[in-house]
Structure formats: structure tokens, C-alpha cells
């Protein structure tokens, strides 16, 4: 597989970055070199800010102002893509190399039918009506889409179907290389699994190469043949999937692998990587991972590590690449033990029932009526759900998108009305929807949202976000008390030192830090029940463990936590009990170990199959 004749695309010394509004510049990619071979799936994996999307766009020569490619070559069939004329580039795009951007499924022209759109794209490349129709039919069926799709508008299709349309479009002219930038973000976990599985089958059959960009290391381990790990603008390790899995030789790769929960290899503690990746406004000497590396040497600060060849295919950019990291010990901050401090119990009122049930939901229903054709149809978003949330227990609610998890969360939080069913909080009846908008209810039930980028008000500081609930619920007596409480809460969720965070605005924080602020905001109220709606699904892998550890710690504060997710692996890490929801009904529930290692319902089994896990193979 590493024969020189097999190289399809060659990237040499690519350097690119962005100009800032104030006239500065920061680097996103520096001196990156690698090859894409024929008939392979190569994944570039990295967390937010590592430069992977910039890399992909630069390769395709589509990096626009304020971005700029500063140097390097992208060699394809002897020609440099970066030096081609617009016309030459256009003739290559879609025909030899296709690019599927992130959120492509939302990028389809909303006022054009799918079929017309694909025909237009083909027409631009010189294909007439009849030929176009043939190609379209072929590729749609390859991606398992029904032929009626050609007459539909993008709005009429689900996210998964739109993504298949986009993928089919990229394959229309049988290109040699398809570049995919995060092709499955925002998709349901089972849909994601099915799309990648089908894509791999097609790739093996037709023999083109795939260069896929992703932040999801376990998913890429399932999908790709080779993986390049990217950090702070460089590729720090590259090798075949098995080589990286069994033998990670860069500290970052090693830590990443140990920060993702796995069902197959259960871990008691997940590692998290403290700190944040550097912003490359200037090029400093030494290793860029130095500040966060558990295995650093003084040499690492002064000299830039060079690639050490571990095998024909396996390279790592670390001075210690020849050592086995699992034999080294790690400092405690990588385990992020959180200190409860002076908080013995968060909730002020003890539970009424002696069995510790904080929230009880009985026979919950939520029905929508819509028109389909000429009939009115009822959609049962929530169809007879009952469960209890106990203090000191983390209950997980697992299922794919659209099966009712968020609806249940919103109903319990008091944002939505249920059609029928009762809700009891600490034994008191709060079934009436209006009763769940009262201060009494709100002081006991709080929620943390999925998207860290929209759950904080961009115009207000961190301190404001924590002050407001404290003031509204009368938790403090005076200004000093207030300041102290805010600091305590920030410390509790792991934002150290808290003073540094008080006056920061959300855009200055990373995703993980924002989620911690959201949790602190919810805790300020001193609730009995905390609903966590997919709190980590939009975060980077190395950051997830930190947030999950915070939630685990909260259990010791006697909170009843409802953890909603589609990721069963995280469930196996933090939850005590789990409920699987399918089409609005709970199809399986019980102790976490029981359900995961001994699933009974079909849907549970499918979820387990679809969960990204580095030890699986697609």
C-alpha cells in the first residue's frame, strides 16, 4: 500500500492561516506534508481549532479571505492544485476530485428540486440531459435513495437523506478522490453509522480514495484505513488504524484514545487533557503540545520534534516516540478529580419520599396533529413514558434523534406542555403545565443544553450568567456574599482560577468552558433535578471526559440527574440506570451494565452496534 506509484495526491509543506479584523494573522496549518494513496480511506482527526478544515479547504484551493494559503504544494497528477487557473480547477472539481463541505446537507439550494440541481451541476461539466439522468439514477440508487427524490425540494427531506444526496452528487462523475469535511455532524447516531457503512462498501467496490476530516477519533477508527492525528496545525502522528490503536506513539494520541469511553474496553476513569490548544499568532520554538503534555522533557520546549519513523507507515512527531506510554504514570490533573469543597448537598430541601425520588413521571404523552396528503395524522412524540429520577442517581435516557428525548426534557423543564400525563416533584403534583413555569418549580428543576455556542448570551460576562439566578432566587444577602458564591460555583465546576473567568465573554471561552459555565448557572439555583440534554455531544473528545466527570461529581451532591444522549459509550461511563427510548416509548430500562452487556430490545442492539468505538470495525 505504500508503493510510490500508488500516490494519488501529495501535500507538501502546506502553510495557511487567517487575517484577523485587527490586522494580525494567525496560523492554522504549518508545514503539513502527507500523501493520499489510491484506493484507501485516510482520516485526518483533530479537535476544534487544530486546522483540519483549513487544511481540507487549502488542498482544494478554496480558502477565501480572510484565509490565505502562504506556501506549499498540492500535487495531483503532476500538477499543483494551488497554482492552477480557475478554469483548470473547475474542470477538476467534481470530475477528478470532489469536496463535500461541512453542513453540506444544509447547503442545498432551497428553491431548486434535487434532480434539477444535480442536472445543473452536470450540465456545467458538459453533460446533456439524458446522460445526466442516467448518472443521477445510478448514484442515487448507490446511496440507497428512492428515485422519487429527484422531484423533491431539500426541505422535504430529512437530514440523513439530504446528506446522502450530497454524497451522491459528489460521486456523480466518478472522481478519483472525495474529500469529506465532517460529513456526519448533526446526524442521528444510527443514521451516521449507516451512511458511513454504505460509503465504505461503495468505496471498496468502486476503488476511489476518501480523505475524511473528523473530530471523532473512535468513529474514524471504525471507518478509516489510515489515520493522521492533527494538533495545532501539524500532523503529530500518522499510521494505519491498527498501529495507532494498539501502539499510540504520540502523547496526544495516547491521551485522546484514553479519553473516549468504550463499551468494549470499559474504563473506570477517563482522562481529560487540561488546558487549551495554542492560538498560533506567532511561531514559537519547541513542541506545540508542550504545555499540556504529561511526558514532556526540557528538550521539548526548545526544539521542534521531528518525525520519527516507527515503521513504513507509522510516524510520530515526538522525541519520546519510541517509548510505550502506557507504562508511564500520569499526574492527577489528567484524571480531573473534582473537589466538592464546602458543598455537602446542593439541594436545600430534602426529599419527601424516603425512597429518594425527586421527580416522578407517569404515563406522559405528547401528540401532534399534522396533515399528510388529505388526512390528519397524529404523531405521538411521547407515547406513554413513565420513570423516576432519584437523588444521587444518574439516569440516562438514550435514543436516536427524533424519538422523543428532547421533547421529554422540554416537558419536564416546563418549556413545553404535555398532552397528558402527570409529573410529581418531591411528591407534589406539577402536572399542570403552567405550574411548571412557577418560581417554585424553577428553583428545583434546571437544565443544561446541548449547544455550548448558543446557551450563553454573547453580550454578557460569565459573572452575569451566574449572578442572575443567584439574585432572582434570593440566594444571597449582599454584594460580597454574591461574589463569593459566584467564585465558589466556578471552582466547583472546575474553572480554575475562578477570578480569571469572571469578566470573560462567551466567545473568549472554549466549548468545554462554556458548558461548565452553563452547569454552574444551573447549580446556582440549588436544584433538586438537573436535566442534561446531550451536554457533551458538541464538544471535543478530550474535553468531554472533563464535563462527564463534573456530572459524576454532582451525583455526590445528592442531585437527581437525567442524562440525555445518543452515545451509549458515555452512558456506560457515568450512568447508573439507563432507559432506551424508541418512537416515543421506553423499550428497555434497567441497570446500566445489564442493559448494555445484555440488551434485549432490537433498537438497543442497533444503538450498541452504531456507537463509535475505536475497537470496532465498520
Amino acid at each position, binding site marked *: 500500500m505504500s508503493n510510490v506509484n500508488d500516490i494519488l495526491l501529495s501535500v*507538501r*509543506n502546506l*502553510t495557511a*492561516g487567517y*487575517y*484577523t*479584523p485587527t*490586522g*494580525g*494573522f494567525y*496560523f492554522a496549518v*504549518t*508545514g503539513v*506534508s502527507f500523501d493520499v494513496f489510491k484506493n484507501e480511506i485516510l482520516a485526518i482527526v483533530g479537535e476544534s481549532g487544530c486546522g483540519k478544515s483549513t487544511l481540507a479547504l487549502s488542498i482544494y484551493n478554496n480558502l477565501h*479571505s*480572510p484565509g*490565505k494559503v*502562504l*506556501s506549499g504544494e498540492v500535487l495531483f497528477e503532476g500538477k499543483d492544485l494551488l497554482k492552477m487557473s480557475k478554469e483548470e480547477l473547475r474542470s477538476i472539481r467534481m470530475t477528478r476530485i470532489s469536496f463535500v463541505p461541512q453542513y453540506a446537507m444544509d447547503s442545498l439550494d432551497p428553491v431548486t428540486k434535487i434532480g434539477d440541481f444535480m442536472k445543473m451541476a452536470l450540465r456545467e461539466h458538459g453533460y446533456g440531459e439524458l446522460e445526466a439522468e442516467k448518472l443521477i439514477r445510478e448514484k442515487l440508487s448507490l446511496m440507497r435513495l428512492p428515485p422519487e427524490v429527484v422531484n423533491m425540494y431539500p426541505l422535504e427531506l430529512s437530514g440523513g437523506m439530504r446528506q446522502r444526496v450530497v454524497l451522491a452528487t459528489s460521486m456523480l462523475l466518478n472522481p478519483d478522490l472525495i474529500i469529506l469535511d465532517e460529513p456526519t455532524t448533526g446526524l442521528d447516531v444510527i443514521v451516521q453509522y449507516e451512511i458511513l457503512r454504505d460509503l465504505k462498501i461503495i468505496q471498496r467496490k468502486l476503488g476511489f480514495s476518501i480523505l475524511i476530516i473528523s473530530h471523532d477519533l473512535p468513529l474514524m477508527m471504525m471507518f478509516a484505513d489510515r489515520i493522521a492525528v492533527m494538533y495545532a496545525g501539524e500532523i503529530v502522528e500518522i499510521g494505519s488504524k491498527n498501529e495507532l490503536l494498539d501502539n499510540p506513539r504520540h502523547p496526544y494520541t495516547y491521551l485522546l484514545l484514553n479519553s473516549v469511553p468504550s463499551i468494549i474496553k470499559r474504563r473506570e476513569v477517563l482522562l481529560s487533557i487540561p488546558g487549551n490548544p495554542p492560538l498560533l499568532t*506567532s*511561531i514559537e*520554538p519547541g513542541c506545540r503540545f508542550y504545555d499540556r503534555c504529561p511526558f514532556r522533557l526540557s528538550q521539548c520546549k526548545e526544539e*521542534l520534534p*521531528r*518525525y520519527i519513523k516507527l515503521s513504513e507507515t507509522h510516524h510520530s*512527531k515526538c522525541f519520546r516516540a519510541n517509548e510505550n506510554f502506557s507504562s508511564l504514570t500520569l499526574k492527577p490533573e489528567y484524571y480531573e478529580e473534582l473537589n466538592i469543597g464546602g458543598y455537602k448537598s446542593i439541594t436545600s430541601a430534602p426529599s419527601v419520599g424516603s425512597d429518594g425520588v425527586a421527580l416522578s413521571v407517569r404515563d406522559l404523552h405528547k401528540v401532534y396533529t399534522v396533515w399528510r396528503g388529505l388526512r390528519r395524522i397524529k404523531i405521538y412524540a411521547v407515547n406513554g413514558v413513565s420513570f423516576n429520577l432519584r437523588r444521587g442517581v444518574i439516569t440516562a435516557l438514550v435514543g436516536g434523534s427524533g424519538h422523543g428525548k428532547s421533547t421529554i426534557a422540554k416537558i419536564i*423543564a*416546563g*418549556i413545553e406542555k404535555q398532552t397528558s400525563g402527570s409529573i410529581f416533584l418531591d411528591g407534589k403534583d406539577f402536572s399542570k403545565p403552567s405550574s411548571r413555569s412557577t*418560581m417554585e418549580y*424553577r*428553583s428545583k428543576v*434546571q*437544565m443544561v*443544553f*446541548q*449547544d455550548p455556542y*448558543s*446557551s*450563553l*448570551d*454573547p*453580550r*454578557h460576562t460569565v459573572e452575569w450568567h451566574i449572578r*442572575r*439566578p443567584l439574585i*432572582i*432566587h434570593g440566594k444571597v444577602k449582599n454584594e460580597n456574599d454574591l461574589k463569593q458564591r459566584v467564585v465558589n460555583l466556578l471552582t466547583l465546576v472546575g474553572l480554575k482560577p475562578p477570578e480569571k473567568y469572571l*469578566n470573560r465573554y462567551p466567545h473568549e471561552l472554549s466549548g468545554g468552558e462554556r458548558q461548565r459555565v*452553563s452547569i454552574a*448557572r*444551573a447549580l*446556582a*439555583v440549588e436544584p433538586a433535578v438537573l436535566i442534561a440534554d446531550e451536554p457533551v455531544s458538541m464538544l471535543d473528545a478530550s474535553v468531554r471526559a472533563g464535563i462527564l466527570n463534573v456530572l459524576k461529581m454532582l451525583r455526590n451532591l445528592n442531585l437527581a440527574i437525567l442524562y440525555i444522549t445518543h452515545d451509549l459509550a458515555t452512558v456506560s461511563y457515568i450512568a447508573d440506570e439507563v432507559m432506551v427510548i424508541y418512537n416515543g416509548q421506553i423499550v428497555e430500562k434497567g441497570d446500566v451494565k445489564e442493559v448494555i452487556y445484555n440488551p434485549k430490545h432490537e433498537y438497543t442492539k442497533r444503538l450498541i452496534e452504531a456507537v463509535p468505538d475505536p475497537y470496532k470495525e465498520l
Partner: protein
Amino acid sequence: MKREFALSISKVKVITKNKFIAIGVALLLLDIILGIIGSIWTPYSVNASFSFSEPPSWKHLLGTDAYGHDVLSEMLHDTLPTLEVGFGVGALVALLSTIIGLLGGYYAGKTASIIIDIITITVLTIPGVILLVVVSSYFRVANISVSYGITILSLSIVGWAFGARQIRSQVLSLSNREYIIASKLIGEKSYTIIFTQLLPPILPLTFAQFLFGTLYGVLSLVTAEFWGVLPATSSNLGTMLAFISTNAAYVSNQWWWILGAIIPIIILGTGIGFLNIGIDEFVDPRLREIKLPQVRRIVKIPTDNGVIEVSI
């Protein structure tokens, strides 16, 4: 506190660096100054008579009109009342459309919002000019004169509708953001959410409504004066144009007279045009443009293949 101050200074810097806003503001100020000057001094008295319909000369920079009055003096004298009506309508329209837009967007879906929707559409169908002249004619029949206050009020009462719809749709989409829902969840009162969280991002739209309302106010005033039913409490550029129309000044080629009436309006229009371009990056932050630095510098990047030099 210091940080917030520093942030607002940087915001002011962005605003002043924006050439379009600077030019727009300058033109508006020019017009206002013209108006202020005109209200205290004119080259000749507005009532002084000279020879009729003289084209521009050094004595009369804009010539004289069909009644022998100096056109430049008339123009200066009439500008301020016109601007007062314009800005008055602009301010009132901005206020009304913002408040109604905020309430309509935040409470969308509830009965109150549907009522607001109906009222908005009704108001959209009543042209300000028509309402103004109709109301004025009723007043005239009763021999009561129509003050500028009534004028501003009549125009504003129907001028807010278009902007309210725009603001409403923006507020609606903001209200569905998670941080607003989070605020509701921690128990924030509705009016606090509306004024501390929903209003600030809307302010550029409010300003745009002010600009639009000013234009609309001036245009409507001038059009309404054409009918001659507004017994003007003081003369304004509209009354000047009304005289021009009844005298059919275009037939007799008195282009300078017409020009005199519209110069301040042209300045106002140009200023608003520039401001419009200038503020679109605030209304939509995606439009913010990044300027490449003038001076380039060389940075050395060490890589496995040696040191790369790049110029940024």
C-alpha cells in the same frame, strides 16, 4: 467595569473607522447646520420682493421665484421645519416599530401576537400621506390648523408597520435561541429578558428604522403639502414645492427654484444612503470585512523539511 469600557471604546473605533458612516453623519450634520443657520439668518428677508423669476446670479445665488423672493433665503428658512418633521417621524417610527416588534416576536404564537399581526397589516394598508391629508381636511373644515405635532403623529401612527415586521421576525428567531430559553428557565422575568437580552442585538435595526422613518417623514410631508390642505404653521420645503407646483414652474423652466426646494432633501438623502451602507455590517456581522495589513512581514516556520519563509 474597565473591561466593558475598553470594549465599548473598541466598538466606537470600529464605527468611526467606517468611512461610510463618517460621510453619512457628516452630511446629516451639514443639513442640520443649514437648518439652524436658516432659522436665525437668511441673506435676505423671506418676504422681500425682487424682480420675478430671475435665474441665479451673484446677487441671488439661487435666483428668485415667481413671487420675487430670494430662493436661497427661502431654502434656508424652510429647511429646519422639514428636518424637524423628518427626525420626529424617524424617532417615533423607530420607537414604535421596535417596541411592537419586540413584543410581537417574543410573544409569537399567543393571541396577543395574532392581534398585533392584524393591526400591523391594517396599518400597512393606510398610506401615511393619504391619512395625513384626510385628517388635515377634516381639521380644515373645522377651521382648526394642523400643527407639526399632529403631522408627525399621523405619519408615525402608520409608518411603523413595515419595520415592526422585520424586527418581529428577527426577535422571533432570537427568542428561540437556547440562551433565551435558559434565562426563562432560571426564572428571569419577561421584561428583563426583552430589554437586557433581546433589545441590544436589535438596536442596529432600530437605527435603520430611524433612517427609514426620517426619509419617509420628509417625503410624506412634502407630498402632503402638495395638496395644499395642510395649513402650515410655518413654511417648509413642502410648501415651497406646493407653490412651485401651482405656478407650474417646470413649464416656465425655473429649474433654480425647484432646485432650491430640494437641495437640503438631496443632502439628507445622500447622508442616509451612506449610513445605510455603513451599518449593514452591524445588522449582519457576517458582512464585516477584514482588511489586509499594509505592511508585510516575514515569518520563519521550522518544519521537518527545513525552514519555510512566508510573507504575511
